[in-house]
């Protein structure tokens, strides 16, 4: 129990995927312009990351390891994530058109989100058990969402601010991301596994 709680805390705050590990910077910068899209993306990421970790963990433990194919880890995981996203999309479209509309373009976009691949690979490398892996995936994706939503909130306010002309656009966004990252460094060393 204690391990699970520390996994949750560590991967939301201490080792935040975006702000400390620098995974998934592309969607972090790309879809943080509006709160609405940021929330949509966050939900999609939480969903896909958890599911992907579950499937890859099972595949790794029960197929790759027994057959001595662990060196195929990265390729198969990419395959799994891509097919999984496609599968989820197909199923969602039928079962819940509302959710499908809500997640919209973000679902297929996640296929190329490196944070998803990172979470599945790290779960293996850290030698987490299945339950730990799933908790880890949820925590990591919640951490991603946290960073994304904070960023979206700041950027919505930045729209109103007067920014020096040279810093407008992506420059100020990157500076904001940097400062946010420094702020999260405050959690550094607080807890470790």
């Amino acid at each position, binding site marked *: 129990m204690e391990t699970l709680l520390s996994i949750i805390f560590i991967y939301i705050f201490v080792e935040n995927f975006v702000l400390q590990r620098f995974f998934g910077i592309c969607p972090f910068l790309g879809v943080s312009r509006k709160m609405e899209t940021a929330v949509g993306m966050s939900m999609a990421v939480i969903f896909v990351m958890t599911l992907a970790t579950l499937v890859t963990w099972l595949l790794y433990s029960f*197929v790759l390891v027994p*057959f001595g*194919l662990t*060196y195929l880890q990265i390729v*198969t995981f990419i*395959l*799994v994530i891509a097919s999984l996203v496609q599968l989820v999309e*197909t199923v969602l479209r039928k*079962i819940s058109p509302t959710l499908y509309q809500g997640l919209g373009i973000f679902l297929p976009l996640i296929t190329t989100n490196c944070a998803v691949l990172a979470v599945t690979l790290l779960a293996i490398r850290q030698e987490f058990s299945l339950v730990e892996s799933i908790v880890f995936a949820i925590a990591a994706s919640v951490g991603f969402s946290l960073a994304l939503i904070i960023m979206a909130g700041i950027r919505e306010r930045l729209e109103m601010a007067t920014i020096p002309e040279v810093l407008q656009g992506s420059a100020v966004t990157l500076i904001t991301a940097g400062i946010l990252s420094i702020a999260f460094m405050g959690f550094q060393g607080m807890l470790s596994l």
Partner: protein
Amino acid sequence: MLIVYAIVALGLIGLLFGLMLAAAAKVFYVEIDPRVEAVNELVPGANCGACGFAGCMKFSEAVVNGEAEPGDCVPAGEETVAEIARVLGKEVSASGSPIATVFCIGDNFKTADNFIYEGVEDCKVAGEMYGGFKACSYGCLGLGNCVRVCPFDAIDMGSHGLPVVDKIKCTGCGLCAGACPRDLIKMLPSGDEGHLVLCASQDRGKTVSKACEVGCIACKACVKACPEEAIEMNDKLAVIDLEKCTDCGECVKKCPPGTIHPRSAIPTAEEAAARAAEKEKESA
């Protein structure tokens, strides 16, 4: 041997997922209106947004659901619009797609420069700097903001320093009109009928003639010459009403600087280049 294992294993896993996806596609098949896809095939697919929808796919859905008219897709052109309408079994309100027209003919040889500009290749930037390097503060700066924004590759920067619109490629999406910081590009109805005063200067005649050989000097000769009363003065610039213009050509004869041209004579890219080359030869 290792490589064979790898290939077989990966192939099997891939096959498994492929079958799963195929099965899912069958089991969870959602009927999409085939007309949406048919319309989506027809539209230009540049996602220019001129229709007001988020991309061509959304537009296709809207058209099929009756929320938009086939003609709302500006770049589609008459034929495509007719075809979309045919898919939907609808009538089309016939109106050709507009064509971008540059309202300035003060090229590098006809308009004087105030200074040499060596800054960023951007009309907006150049225009902000001391009112632009061209002596005429209304004329085209020729740095090609319109060329860069055109998703259809329909505008070229002629060697004479003015953008040339390819009338065939132009789909009338209007992005160039929005990109021109001096508002020199106007979207006109398609066709070659009518004459135009190809100038945008609101300066006094004296100032204009100092800056540009071919600018409108507001002499009103064309207004008096026009038998159809199709020409009016808009402050210090003559404007021809295309609906009234009968292409008689009287105004062309009377215009001292030669600012008025029939629309059919607006040169294509090759013609403009040839003219520029000729000019260069003369001055050499």
